[in-house]
Every structure is written in C-alpha cells, then in structure tokens.
C-alpha cells in the first residue's frame, strides 16, 4: 500500500503546511542571526556619490530647463570629478552589452504586439485569417506570449540589469563578451522556438511551448548572460550590495534553474506535470520578472529624485518575503482541479501572504516619491516607473484576492485572469522597463531623445490603451464567470456576453501597439543620433558643469568610445 494513503487527508495537509512553515521560520531566524537584515539606512545612499543626494538625474527629461530640479527642491549637491569619472566609466562599460539586449527586445516587442492584436481580433472575428495553420488563434496567441515573455520582457530586463550593475557596484562591467554570445544563442533559439510554434511543434504546456531541444540553447544563453553579474560582483568596489543587486542577482540564479527543471523531457507526467507547469508559470513572474522590475524601480525612483529610498530595511525585508512567499503561489492556478488539496491550499495561503512584501514596496515607493507629482510630470522616466510601481501593487493585491477560492470560482477560466496577467506583465513590468529605457538610452548613445512629443505620445497611448484593455476585459471576464456558473443559462451566454469587451480589448490593444511603434521608432532615431545636438551634453546635469573640465572622460570621448 502506498505510504501516503495511510495518512488521513486533513492530517497530511496540516503536517505539510506546518513543516513548510517551520522550515520557513528557521530560514528566517537563521537569516536574522546571519545579519541579512542588519542593514543601516545608509545602505540606501549607496547609489549616490558622496554629495549627490538632492541632485536629480533623468537623461530623458528636458535638460535645458530646471523644472525637474525645481520640483525636487533646490540643492547645492554635486559630484566630484573622480566620482563623475567613475559614473561615466561604469556607464561606458555596460553601454554596448545593454544596447544589444535592448535592441533585440525592441524587435520582439513589435513582433509580439502584432501577434497580440491579430489574436485579439480573431476572438471576435473567428473567420478572419483562417486559411493558414500558423495564423490560427491557438498558435498566434502562443507566438505572442513567447515573443513578449522571452523576447521583449526578458531582453529588456537583462539589458536594464546589465546596465544597472556597474552603477550599483561602482565597478565597470566585467565579461561583456559573455553577453554577446549569450544574447546570440538566446535569439537564434527564440527565433527557432517561435517558428516551431507557428509550424505546430510544441511541448504543449503553457509558458513552456518551445520544443525542449531548442530550450537547451535558451538555458545556455541565459546562463552566459548571467556570467557578467558574477564577474562584476567579484570585482566590486562597494562594500554593501544595494537592494536592487539582491533582486537582480537572485533573479539571474532562479531563472535558469526554473527553466531547466521545467523543460526536462519525459520526467513530468499527468497532473504532476500541471503542478510543475504552474510552479514554473508563476515563478517566471515571481522570481524572474518581478525581481528585475522591482530592482529597476528601487534604483530609478530614488535616483531620479535624488532622494534615498524611504526605508531601506523594509526594502530588504520585502525582498526575502517576496522570494519566500511568491515562490510557492503557483498552485493557485489549479484551484478546483484534480490535484492534492494540500498543495493548492498552500499556494492560496502564500498568495495571501504576498500582501506583506507588496505592502513593503508600496510604502517605500509611496514615501520616497512623497506626493512629488511635479517631478513625476517633468521626468519621463519617473512617469513610467511610478505608474508601473503603482500597478505592481494593484496587480499583486488583485492576485492575492483572486487566489481566494470564493473569488477564484468566478474568475478562473475567464478573461478576467488574462486581464490580471497583463496588469502584472504590462502595467507593472513593461511600464517600468519603458521608464528605465528612457533613462538608459541617452547614457548609452550620449544623445538626447530627439522628440519629447514622441515620449508623451507613447505614454498616453499605452496608458489609455491599457486602461481600456484592462477595464474592458476585467468586466467582460467577470460577467463571463458569472454566466458560466449559472447552469440555468446556456453556455453560449457566457461567450456572447464577452463580445463587446473583447472588441474593447482589440481597440485598447491597438492603441498600445501604436504606442509601441512610436517608442521603437524613437529608439532607432536616438540610436542613430537623430535630431539636433544639444549642449550641454545630457550626460552631465547642469549643476555639474564646473566639473566637466576636470573629468578624465568627457561626454565627447564617451560618444566616440
């Protein structure tokens, strides 16, 4: 007789939940005694030079007026020549590897958006583009997901991470060549993977569709792109690792492990495969994209404002809580399914516990921005990152609620979940990436964004488009869920009720796609140093002009380099 059948159902659930909590408690105590949280508030200052606090920095903002600095408050803060040199050296070391990743991400953003819009229209025009197998909804939707997740989001995330590391560690990036090889492998593999999906070759599990033979190269490529993190860490000049480094470092460890275990062929079976599927599916969000998105937010919000993060302790506590709770929420995708109750219940509990780390982020970001709405208006970076950060909180609280059985009963299996997924991956992650890229690109190419109106157009198109998308699909999904639960109504009612909202989604999604096109065009224009050259160079804020002469690397040299 199988050993588990000897134990009563409820006892087993309690036993497991209890043991996991105890393990968690021990890990927590161990980490406390090892000084994980013995950090001083001074750790928050590590992203600034000695006298820099108070000085705003947003290369995407208008550099010829002082409105952003005025909004943040007058200051005599400044960088010394040596500090400026270090900063420029750091930015120079990461410029090309980060650019390679971002450029690739841009291409995937366009491919993924196009596939998304066509898929969306197909849901209310089911006889449109039906003559080719690769254009059928089931394949095109999957091409959309894989292009966006492994193309746009992962590449933007890695690009932004690589660019942040030298600044966070005050050390030039070591091992750029690993990035080139890694990015090349990753992209060739991803192109093959997406083509395979179009041709109908799939491993069949959501988020894991690409054939495992191709996945091998994604794992190797991803690992290679993570190498510079460790090489740079080994050479770092700072004593303390800023909270963003914790997030990025952990994410780069987690992703290859997750992706590797999930893709081992012939290991997973039956419903165990489903448990693994959602352990992976939700950990890609929780242990890969969320840490990178938060790392960027924890850097750019204080950096743009010239104001250290409100509670540094809280940010690190938030990191470990997020890692612990988020890593176990995957089972909430299987509520009501043919899986062990204890596993699903564990995931529900941890989903609700996620409120703790989310609250930590919410308090910290809110207190750091401190209602400085003027700065948000004048800084394109902040506009996107703060919006993304707010939507992170919204998406997380919504996710905790959706994990409750009573709510899940209505929302599971409906478009409501799709809207929620986009609130996380788009509202939060993609918005933060947009903001980060606006900050980074002028530093990479030594050139200002040529057309500020394009940044505004991008912002409003994607914000309004996404609002229509999210609100429409959430309402449609909720109504769909209610109709589906009412057995007195024919099933087709639950389909018919969604049609207007699916059309709204296509409309909102098209606005988002238009916004992306403007963004990508602008990205290519700045890359080609299009438009009129402006003085002073965006590299050094006006306040620092006296120091430019002393700095060893000038903006001019940086451009040539």
């Amino acid at each position, binding site marked *: 007789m199988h050993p588990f*059948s000897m134990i009563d159902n409820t006892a087993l659930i309690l036993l497991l939940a209890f043991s996991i909590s105890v393990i968690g408690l021990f890990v927590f105590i161990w980490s406390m005694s090892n000084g994980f949280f013995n950090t001083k508030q001074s750790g928050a200052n590590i992203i600034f030079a000695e006298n820099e606090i108070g000085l705003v920095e947003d290369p995407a903002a208008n550099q010829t007026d002082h409105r952003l600095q005025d909004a943040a408050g007058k200051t005599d803060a400044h960088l010394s020549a040596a500090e400026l040199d270090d900063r420029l050296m750091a930015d120079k070391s990461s410029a090309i590897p980060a650019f390679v990743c971002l450029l690739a991400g841009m291409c995937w953003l366009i491919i993924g958006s196009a596939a998304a819009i066509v898929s969306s229209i197909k849901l209310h025009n089911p006889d449109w583009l039906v003559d080719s197998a690769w254009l059928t909804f089931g394949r095109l939707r999957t091409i959309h997901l894989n292009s966006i997740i492994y193309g746009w989001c992962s590449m933007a995330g890695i690009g932004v991470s690589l660019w942040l590391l030298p600044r966070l560690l005050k050390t030039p990036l070591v091992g750029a060549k690993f990035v080139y090889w890694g990015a090349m492998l990753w992209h060739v593999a991803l192109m093959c993977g997406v083509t395979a999906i179009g041709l109908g070759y799939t491993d069949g599990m959501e988020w894991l569709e690409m054939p495992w033979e191709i996945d091998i190269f994604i794992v190797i490529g991803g690992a290679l792109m993570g190498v510079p993190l460790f090489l740079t860490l080994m050479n770092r000049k700072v004593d303390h690792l800023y909270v963003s480094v914790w997030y990025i470092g952990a994410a780069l460890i987690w992703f290859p492990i997750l992706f590797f*275990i999930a893709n081992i062929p012939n290991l997973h079976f039956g419903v165990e495969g489903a448990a693994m599927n959602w352990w992976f599916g939700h950990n890609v969000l929780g242990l890969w994209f969320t840490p990178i998105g938060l790392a960027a937010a924890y850097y750019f919000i204080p950096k743009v404002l010239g104001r250290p993060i409100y509670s540094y302790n809280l940010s690190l506590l938030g990191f470990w809580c997020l890692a612990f709770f988020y890593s176990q929420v995957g089972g909430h995708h299987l509520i009501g399914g043919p899986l062990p109750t204890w596993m699903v219940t564990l995931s529900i509990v941890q989903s609700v516990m996620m409120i703790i780390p989310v609250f930590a982020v919410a308090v910290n970001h809110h207190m750091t921005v401190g209602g400085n709405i003027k700065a948000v208006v004048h800084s394109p970076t902040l506009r996107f990152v703060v919006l993304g950060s707010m939507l992170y909180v919204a998406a997380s609280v919504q996710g905790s609620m959706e994990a409750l059985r009573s709510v899940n009963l209505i929302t599971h*299996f409906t478009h409501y979940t799709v809207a929620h997924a986009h609130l996380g991956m788009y509202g939060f992650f993609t918005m933060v990436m947009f903001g980060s890229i606006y900050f980074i690109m002028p530093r990479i190419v030594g050139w200002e964004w040529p057309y500020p109106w394009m940044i505004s157009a991008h912002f409003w198109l994607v914000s309004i488009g996404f609002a229509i998308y999210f609100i429409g699909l959430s309402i449609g999904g909720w109504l769909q869920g209610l109709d589906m639960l009412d057995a007195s109504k024919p099933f087709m009612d639950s389909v018919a009720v969604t049609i207007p909202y699916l059309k709204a989604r296509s409309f909102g999604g098209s606005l988002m796609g238009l916004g992306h096109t403007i963004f990508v065009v602008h990205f290519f224009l700045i890359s080609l140093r299009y438009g009129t050259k402006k003085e002073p160079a965006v590299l050094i804020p006006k306040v620092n002009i006296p120091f430019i002469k002393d700095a060893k690397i000038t903006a001019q040299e940086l451009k040539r380099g």
Partner: protein
Amino acid sequence: MAGHIDERKLVSGALVIIAIATLALVIMPYIQLKHIKAPDALKPYTDVQAKGRQVYMSLGCVYCHTQQPRDPSFAPADAKRGWGRASTAADYAYDQVHLLGTMRTGPDLLNIGARQPSQDWHLGHLYQPRAYTPGSIMPAFPFLFIERKGPAKPGDVVVNLPPSYAKPGITIVATTDAVNLVEYMKSLDRTYPIKKTIAESLTIDKPNTAKTSADEPAAETK
C-alpha cells in the same frame, strides 16, 4: 570586501528558497502522484488517438478548452452542464503532457467523446463551428480539410455539412490530421465511476471534503 559575505548570503538564500518551493510544488506532488494507477475502465490512447492528441496540442486547443470538470461541492454548474464528474489524478494516468487548461472560452472537453460521439458532427464543426453553434467564436479550421471539385474519391472521409453551409459541386474531404483529432476527441470519456479511496480523494482540490462527487453516481453526460 570581507570575502564577499553578501554574495554568499544571496546565493545560499536564493537556492534555499527555490529548493523549498520546488519541494512543495514539484517534488512532493511527484512522490504522491507517482503511485496512482490508471482506473481499469481507462484505456491507453491508441496510435491514432495519440496522433490526434498531438494535433490538439499543436493547434493550441488547450488555450480555450479545459479538461477538468470540478467537484459539485465547489462548482456545481460543471456537472449540471453535462461536463461529467470531478476528475481525479488517476483519470490522467496516460496523459504524458497534461492538457488541463486554464481557460473556458469554450466548454470543458474531458468528456466530449461521451457527450458528442458523432464523427460527422466533429468534422463539420471543425470545418465551420458556426454551422452547428450559432454565435460560436471558435476559429474555423479549413486547412484541416481539402475542398474537392466534383464527387468524392474512394477512401475519402467526406464532411457532411448542414445544407445551408454546403457549397454546390464542392466536396469537403477531411485530412488525416482532422480524422485523428476527431478520434482523439471521441476518446475523451471519463464517465466511468471511480472508487472513493483515500488516495484518490487526496487528488481532487476541493474545499469541502465532507461531500464528494465520488459518493454519488457519475453524472449523466449525454
């Protein structure tokens, strides 16, 4: 630098956390589910059905159709719609890649073979869903069929569309993929009763364990 203490904390912390998560959500279910055997009434997929299952996967049917009716104590509408009793882990013993699904843009299909055993219906429905279900938003799959001018040849699997959808002089012939896919769907039938054993009750997620569908006769799914 003090020997990179922070790095060690980071790496060890990250590894411990992912180990706990993998233990809870992958390894424990693996150990528990490994021993579950297929019910006697459930037969392995035939070669043709297995090929059809590949077509089901390759066309992405799973993105709109679940294969997991839920327990009446949790979601009574599932059984009332004729989708069948709550499934248990044993019902998926032959599913090498699970197709539980997360979306019900269309209905649950775990027992579609019992609900709709007609090959004609399935083939016609794949060719043009709206000929059978007005208002359906399922894509048409004309690429799974050959439109032939004139009469059928020997060996052709001819699709008999409702008269208003039939095109005069054109014979619609199903490809092997279409036939295999339909064979797979016809095989989807988990209406056999299940014995309520502790091992099986462990493998349905339901909040209310006092009453289970397994205590009742399997829902009539016709």
